[in-house]
């Protein structure tokens, strides 16, 4: 320790660097078990987290699998220029944004309303049953959810079309109609997430000081007054943070769900940036254009990152809560 201090003040910078390295070696020698314990995590970080991020440089190359990441010729920003000339890009960007806005506007308020009413329930068994049942879909996979959707909406024997038929209507092939994709996506989103989001609000409500309600009762407040003037304002911080998070995630769609739900007859409404990239990489005929797909994804990530950083600042300002 004393040696390093001396090195830091008196000696030249080259020797200072040497001092740091020596310190490091000393530290490894002393705590070698600790560094050994870090090894799996370090490998995982390098191979599976930094590796793919480094692999993004292929967006600036004309990547070919034979020449590899380091051998492929550089084309710099050609792939990015291509994005702006691609006639299909505006459509997928608009579809992505529409889905995201629908998710924020339609899905967001539901768990708030739900938890306000759930908070009024005094019967313990009702409370826990409702919470357990509404929370369950969050753990069910996209494949199961979408499969159930197909079963329920099946034109031949699904319950929805049975009902339509018994009312004298013509059966509808919901999964092949572009107009039905967005409503169905949003319904699945609500079903899968509202019980989960409600848990956060319910927890915020548990922290409200009961004396507030008692004071309000003395002043003659009824139940609605208490819900609207005490409970709702008291959870406003959680609401704002959750809203900010969902705005920050505007470019994050449930890729599994869309890949399982969509087919070429509903591309008009269902095709988003991520599915476009997916198809480019894994379902293209001939040689897939990995470089272009990566460039599209980078542009999406950069916009999303700016959005998340901005939103994180907002969260900081409003709620003194940073997201990361």
């Amino acid at each position, binding site marked *: 320790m004393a040696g390093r201090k001396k090195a830091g003040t008196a000696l030249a910078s080259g020797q200072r660097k040497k001092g740091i390295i020596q310190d490091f070696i000393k530290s490894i020698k002393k705590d070698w078990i600790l560094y050994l314990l870090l090894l799996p995590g370090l490998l995982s970080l390098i191979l599976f*987290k930094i590796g793919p991020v480094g692999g993004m440089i292929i967006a600036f190359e004309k990547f070919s699998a034979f020449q590899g990441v380091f051998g492929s010729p550089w084309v710099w920003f050609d792939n990015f220029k291509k994005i702006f000339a691609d006639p299909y890009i505006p459509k997928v960007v608009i579809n992505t944004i529409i889905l995201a806005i629908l998710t924020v506007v339609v899905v967001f308020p539901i768990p708030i309303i739900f938890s306000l009413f759930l908070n009024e329930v005094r019967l313990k068994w009702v409370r826990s049953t409702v919470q357990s049942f509404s929370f369950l879909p969050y753990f069910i996979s996209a494949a199961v959810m979408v499969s159930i959707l197909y079963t329920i909406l099946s034109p031949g024997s699904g319950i929805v079309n049975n009902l339509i038929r018994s009312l004298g209507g013509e059966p509808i092939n919901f999964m092949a109609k572009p107009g039905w994709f967005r409503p169905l996506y949003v319904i699945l989103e609500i079903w899968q997430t509202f019980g989960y989001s409600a848990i956060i609000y319910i927890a915020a409500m548990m922290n409200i000081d009961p004396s507030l309600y008692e004071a309000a009762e003395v002043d003659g407040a009824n139940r609605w007054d208490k819900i609207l003037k005490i409970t709702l304002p008291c959870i406003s911080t959680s609401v704002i943070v959750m809203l900010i998070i969902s705005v920050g995630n505007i470019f994050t769609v449930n890729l599994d769900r869309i890949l399982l739900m969509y087919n070429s007859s509903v591309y008009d409404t269902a095709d988003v940036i991520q599915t476009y990239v997916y198809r480019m990489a894994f379902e293209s005929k001939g040689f897939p254009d990995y470089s272009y797909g990566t460039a599209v994804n980078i542009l999406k990530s950069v916009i999303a990152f700016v959005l998340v950083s901005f939103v994180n600042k907002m969260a900081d300002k409003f709620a003194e809560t940073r997201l990361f």
Partner: protein
Amino acid sequence: MKKNKVQVFDVINNGILLLVALACIYPFLYVFFVACSNGTYLQRGEVSFFPKGFNLEAFKYILGSSKFHVWTGLRNSFLYTAGGTVVAVLTTYVTAYALSRDRLKGRYFLMGAFIITWVFDAGIIPQYIIYNKLGFIDNPWVMIIPGAINTQFLIITKTFVEGIPKELDEAAVVDGANDWTILTRLYLPLSKTIMATIGTFYAVSIWNQYLIPQIYLKSDNLKVIQQVLKDVVIADAGTSTAFKNVIVNGITLNQQNLKSAAIFVSMLPIVLVYPFVQKYFKKGIMVGAVKG
């Protein structure tokens, strides 16, 4: 008068919320009703709120038939989930322990690297190129090794480990303990809850994975149940060519029976463990909401 009004509100509120709860699980029940009904009634559109002509032949048929790989998918999903969860919990915990020690040089830098690579998602193509080089194509280890550290769970675990009083391990060091003994004798026994919490989250997320196996696992004998479901239920939805009506023991099984049986068996493991692990989920969400 006033008291009476309050009770009316309670009755209506409880009633509506219970209906909402029922609506949440009705689709799961419906799938079960369809799976265990007689196909003849199903075709006439007579199955909605309870099974008709109850039988379990569809389950036997779908699990027994080699054509649909349902059994293979379930087996693979079980193996990947079990292996992946053990690897992930241990790796995450040990890494969180190491990163929470002051003696580890460069720990802030490493944590920063974890967070940056988490926030800035590389996307599926660069990942594919790297994983391809590492030999993960059609390799079942792709379900176990690469997902060993989820940055969010790492942060949660690290926060927990940092909450364990340092005086404890100072005392242990005086007694001549090294990091290995501190970790295994002192920290692990104190961390059962957090390990159960991240363990359940890892297990559910591995079981539910669709994108990764769909990209990397192409052979039928390696596929997970989610992929099988896609092949059996979704890819077949337009044409329905894979299924013909079958008659087993005098019971008609049509394609809806069989598909529903496949859906039901693939969600059953989650539904069965859900009541027992629910509290860990809730705990995880609360910690995640505060720290995440």
